[in-house]
């Protein structure tokens, strides 16, 4: 009986091993071509977003180097990007106590749809942009009376995701 069992096992192995090998060889490996999304930033002066010296009680003071047609920051969808993308923005206070709501942005110099930065997640500003599209960001600051004297900074993050994907 024991012998019969061993023989059966051996026979099964002999049959199963080639079958397993065959299965491994024959299973097709899926190939994925990831979407490519790439953006670049530029700003006049290359000094980041700089509001200079501002008196408390000032409202919507612009980046010192931005002008009509010259945004504080330009986000360009790089040529290698092969899908449509949405561009979002968010901010993180890195020094000082000036609340994010005082750090603002707009898509044009006239402040149409001016809005305050918010924390995570990013908020979509431009949608359905493709390679080589240029997205303008004008930046503004409001300094309420009583704001602590000295330097305040915020890290502004611009993010591109495939159109429709969540940030």
């Amino acid at each position, binding site marked *: 009986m024991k012998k019969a069992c061993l023989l059966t096992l051996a026979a099964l192995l002999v049959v199963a091993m080639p079958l397993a090998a065959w299965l491994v060889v024959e*299973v097709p490996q899926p190939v994925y071509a990831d979407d490519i999304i790439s*953006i670049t930033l530029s700003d006049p002066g290359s000094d980041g977003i700089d509001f200079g010296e501002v008196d408390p009680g000032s409202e919507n*003071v612009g980046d010192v180097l931005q002008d009509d047609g010259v945004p504080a920051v330009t986000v360009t969808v790089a040529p290698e990007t092969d899908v449509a993308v949405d561009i979002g923005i968010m901010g993180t206070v890195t020094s000082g106590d000036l609340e994010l709501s005082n750090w603002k942005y707009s898509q044009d110099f006239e402040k149409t749809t001016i809005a305050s930065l918010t924390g995570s997640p990013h908020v979509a500003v431009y949608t359905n942009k493709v390679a080589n599209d240029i997205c303008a960001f004008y930046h503004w600051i409001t300094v309420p009376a009583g704001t602590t004297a000295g330097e305040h900074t915020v890290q502004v993050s611009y993010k591109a995701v495939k159109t429709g994907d969540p940030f």
Partner: protein
Amino acid sequence: MKKLIISVLTALILVAVMAAPAVAVEDTQTATATVDVNQVISITIGDAGSAGINFVGGTPPISEQGDTDQLDGTPAVTITIENETNTEVDVGIMGTIFQGSLALSNWLYSTDFAKTGLAGLTGAYVEVYSDKGPPGGTPIVLDFYHWVTIPDGTATGTHKVTVSYKAKETSGTY
């Protein structure tokens, strides 16, 4: 057998497809935004009763006579650090003889009615309150009680002093 193999193969393909890692494709770039907020220091002066610091006076000698309108809890002068002040400040005091010959050292001040830290005015600012503020929404009120001493031999008539109060940034100079 062939049917079985095809079924197994299909299942394996499905498993492989499902198990493929989801790749989040995105790109993020950052820029630093900076603002340098200018310093604002603002104080206002309050005065109990009649305008100015007033003493009854009288026949010398008189020692440490108080302002006619000041009481315990009602200083002759209050200095308020206003809400727009956005930095920590020190507040100092000085005097300048405006009329008469009564020396500055006879014009006295203290920060409470009990005359704690009573001192004579000087011709240069002397710090009385340190490291005050910023107010952060609630103005800060600082008390000044004033007193005068009239020594024997003081000339008759009116004597006046201009008293100045100054707030400066804690790290600054008067």
